[in-house]
């Protein structure tokens, strides 16, 4: 069974540009979570999608947005990139029907903003 997959592995952008990160959850998982892991700050919750809808949002500006597609894959978009957006972005999935269940993580996309 394939795990959570993220693409690209690395992404280099310049200030002001837009970045699009992609995530495919484990088959059968309907919930997708996005986290930002900046150096020394742990994992900061960004967004949670389930059944195509945004269920919860962390304390991030509106230029961080995303969506979930009918096949449950997801995109994270970051507009007007700033230097401090440089971080590892982790995607995770779970079965929505089982709340409080563990999350399965991808290996992340390392975003570097120059």
């Amino acid at each position, binding site marked *: 069974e394939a795990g959570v997959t993220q693409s690209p592995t690395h992404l280099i952008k310049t200030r002001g540009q837009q970045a699009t990160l992609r995530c495919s959850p484990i088959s059968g998982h309907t*919930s997708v*979570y996005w*986290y930002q892991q900046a150096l*020394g*700050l*742990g*994992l900061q*919750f960004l967004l*949670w999608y*389930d059944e195509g809808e945004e*269920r*919860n949002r962390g304390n991030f500006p509106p230029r961080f947005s995303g969506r979930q597609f009918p096949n449950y894959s997801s995109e994270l978009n970051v507009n007007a990139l700033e230097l401090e957006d440089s971080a*590892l972005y*982790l995607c*995770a999935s*779970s079965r*929505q029907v089982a*709340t*409080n*269940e*563990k*999350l399965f*993580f991808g*290996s*992340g996309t390392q975003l570097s903003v120059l």
Partner: protein
Amino acid sequence: AQTVTQSQPEMSVQEAETVTLSCTYDTSESNYYLFWYKQPPSRQMILVIRQEAYKQQNATENRFSVNFQKAAKSFSLKISDSQLGDTAMYFCAFNNNNDMRFGAGTRLTVKP
């Protein structure tokens, strides 16, 4: 909102010895789950152990065990017989109704 605090940014331990990583959390909920995740240099987050808040018995997984003190909102991880492969970032996490929050992490180094 739930918060998770890991007060030890870095720790080290000699191979074969025991080490304890600390975690505290703040919540008004009574039913929730707590987790410890490991992140090796490969960046892949790996679940180490999980504890359900309504269970009083501390969870154990081979060399890994927790000390769950619900009243004190404390959830520490004990690693026994430390191995070189245990070197990683360790994150404590809290989950209530699909809202999973993480601490800042503790970088553990196991020395030969």
